[in-house]
């Protein structure tokens, strides 16, 4: 079952912050975050493993609450280059090869 992402779309002005959420109905081992710019391949941003750790990538960070089976992606002081579609991918167990992706969140950062 696909994880649920919210919001579906968000428009920001440069410098504003945003939060993208990813919720699963199943227990999770890992949550991956990817960004896809228009016409390009999705690119890996970061991975969070069971244990509730928080990670960062430039001004983008994420958290993982395994009890709530959800992850949040935080975009701080957004830049024009942050525009794109963000996908979370979830894996239910350590031995699972496959990721199940959410439907994506479209982010547009305007000057």
């Amino acid at each position, binding site marked *: 079952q*696909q994880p649920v*992402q919210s919001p579906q779309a968000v428009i920001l002005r440069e410098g504003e912050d945003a939060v993208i959420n990813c919720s699963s109905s199943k227990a999770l*081992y*890992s949550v*991956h975050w*990817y960004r896809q710019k228009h016409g*390009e*391949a*999705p*690119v*890996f941003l970061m*991975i969070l*493993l069971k244990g509730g750790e928080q990670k960062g990538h430039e001004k983008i960070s994420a958290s993982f609450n395994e009890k709530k089976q959800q992850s949040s992606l935080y975009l701080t002081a957004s830049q024009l280059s942050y525009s794109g579609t963000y*996908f979370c*991918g979830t*894996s*239910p*167990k*350590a*031995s*699972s*090869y*496959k*990721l*199940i*992706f*959410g*439907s*994506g969140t479209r982010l547009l950062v305007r000057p």
Partner: protein
Amino acid sequence: DVKVTQSSRYLVKRTGEKVFLECVQDMDHENMFWYRQDPGLGLRLIYFSYDVKMKEKGDIPEGYSVSREKKERFSLILESASTNQTSMYLCASSPLYTNQGYSSGANVLTFGAGSRLTVL
């Protein structure tokens, strides 16, 4: 850099035609995947392979088959294309283990640029 190359960026086919989508990766990854991307539905897994000649169904395998005869190459086959298979197809690969020794559930996917298929 890891490269996942999809042979065709754009294809237009007719209903009933047999379609081959090819994917090649150059990083000796064990795992390879085919996803389908549709607006509002995100990325849905069609098939994946964790070794040569090994394959497992994903969430939407109906109407598709796959072939993995060599480690670096993973093909998606539409035996008889239909209009509802018009979509963007993404190939991805990942290693069996990460450098940190994490297990499969932590493996990072590297995607190809996609093949946009239109079935008329």
